[in-house]
């Protein structure tokens, strides 16, 4: 009799695991791959479930649409804000992501991931119309409850004035420091 609650919990755990594509998210790379897969989902409910499963409750998303080195339109907010704000765009277009390059910095329970991706946007009403662009994504994560969660994702698109490969170039700055 005493085993019943345990068995019920076990089944619940198994079901939950299956419903999120059997991902354990025990390494940062798995979270990134799942993030792009979630962003490709056409169905809002699926996209919402998959994205929210990757973020901490208070996670945020910031996106920058940059037209030139001087003009840009940053937007930001919660995951729910993002889902609501991008709904009409998803209704009109399908999106796919092809990751080109990834680098990870981490220390114990925090990680920062940088990723260059090739994004393809196809109009639903006219599949012959497609837009392609490169994006730089920057992710921050924390390790909690035996898995990695996203705390924030920010991205910016490539623009003509500057090569987006520069985004992956690391500048190491030594700071004069004294006690």
């Amino acid at each position, binding site marked *: 009799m005493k085993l019943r609650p345990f068995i019920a919990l076990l089944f619940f755990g198994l079901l939950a695991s299956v419903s999120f594509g059997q991902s354990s998210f025990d390494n940062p790379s798995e979270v990134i791959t799942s993030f792009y897969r979630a962003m490709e989902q056409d169905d809002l409910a699926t996209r919402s479930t998959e994205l929210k499963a990757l973020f*901490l*409750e*208070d*996670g*945020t998303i*910031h996106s*920058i649409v*940059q037209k030139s*080195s001087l003009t*840009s339109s*940053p937007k*930001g*907010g919660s995951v729910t804000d993002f889902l609501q704000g991008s709904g009409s765009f998803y209704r009109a277009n399908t999106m796919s992501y092809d990751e080109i390059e990834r680098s990870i*910095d981490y*220390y*114990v*329970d*925090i*990680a*920062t991931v*940088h990723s260059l991706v090739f994004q393809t946007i196809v109009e639903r009403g006219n599949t012959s119309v497609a837009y392609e662009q490169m994006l*730089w994504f*920057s992710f*921050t994560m*924390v*390790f*909690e*409850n035996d898995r990695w*969660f996203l*705390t*924030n994702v*920010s*991205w*910016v698109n490539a*623009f003509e004035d*500057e090569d*987006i490969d*520069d*985004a*992956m*170039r*690391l*500048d*190491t*700055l*030594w*700071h*004069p*420091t*004294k*006690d």
Partner: protein
Amino acid sequence: MHTALTFVLLCLATSMFAQVPSTSVDALDAFYHASSKAGFNPNDHLLSTARCQVVTYTEDGSTKAISFTPQAYAVQIDTLTKLFEVDQQPVVILSRYYGHLATAYLSLYTRLVDRQNGDTLRLRSIQSVQMIEQNGWKIASLVIQNEVDAYPFSEELWPRELSADLTLGVGSSPQIDAAPAPTTDEDYDPNKVYNVDQLQVAPEYPGDPALFTSLLSSFEVTMDDSLEGSPFTVVIEEDGFARIGYVGDLSGAEIERAESFVQSMLIWYPGVHDDASVKTKLIFYLL
């Protein structure tokens, strides 16, 4: 008159521009400077949509990230600065940027001086920052991970050249409060092995002192010379690595135990003499 007016306007314009950091790194510096003082205004440094996450640990060792809105983070800073004099200094910043997005993954040195009793706590953390330029560079996300004793920082984020003068821990520890050794005119000898009493700063084992105590007890080793153990020496190199030195009259099995003890050590903070890391000899005793 016209020239004077132009000059005044120019000065005003210069002072206005001086308050707006021109690069993301300048903005980061400004943030750490401002958040070390009372009256920190989050709107000057953080986007309204930003979140600050601090990694904490529960009693059972599990992780819990605590999230703060900019306003809530400012309240934390306000409380901290009432209790302590705060000084936060980035040591190494690993920076990336493209267009109006910038990121920084950095090591930060923090010194807290208790306003009531003057006790000082020095600690370090890794912080991950994402910044967006929107009327000046502002923080979109800040995640803070304080140092975990078992995982010393890498040389990349805590290079000796920058951190030799930075002590860590509570100010009452002898390593921090030790009076500087009298300076001499002797020539620098890179091969010289110093005794602890010749140093400005003694070598320090990283992390919680309990970690070192546990290491000593697990190999039945002590630093207490009154316990009549068998002595051997360990040299802490300039880069913090430990190697076994003089093993005296130890038997083969005892030498093996002493070597295992040394190999189990983490990388030390090396001893400092004349503002430079030096080799230091420590004496241990097998029980």
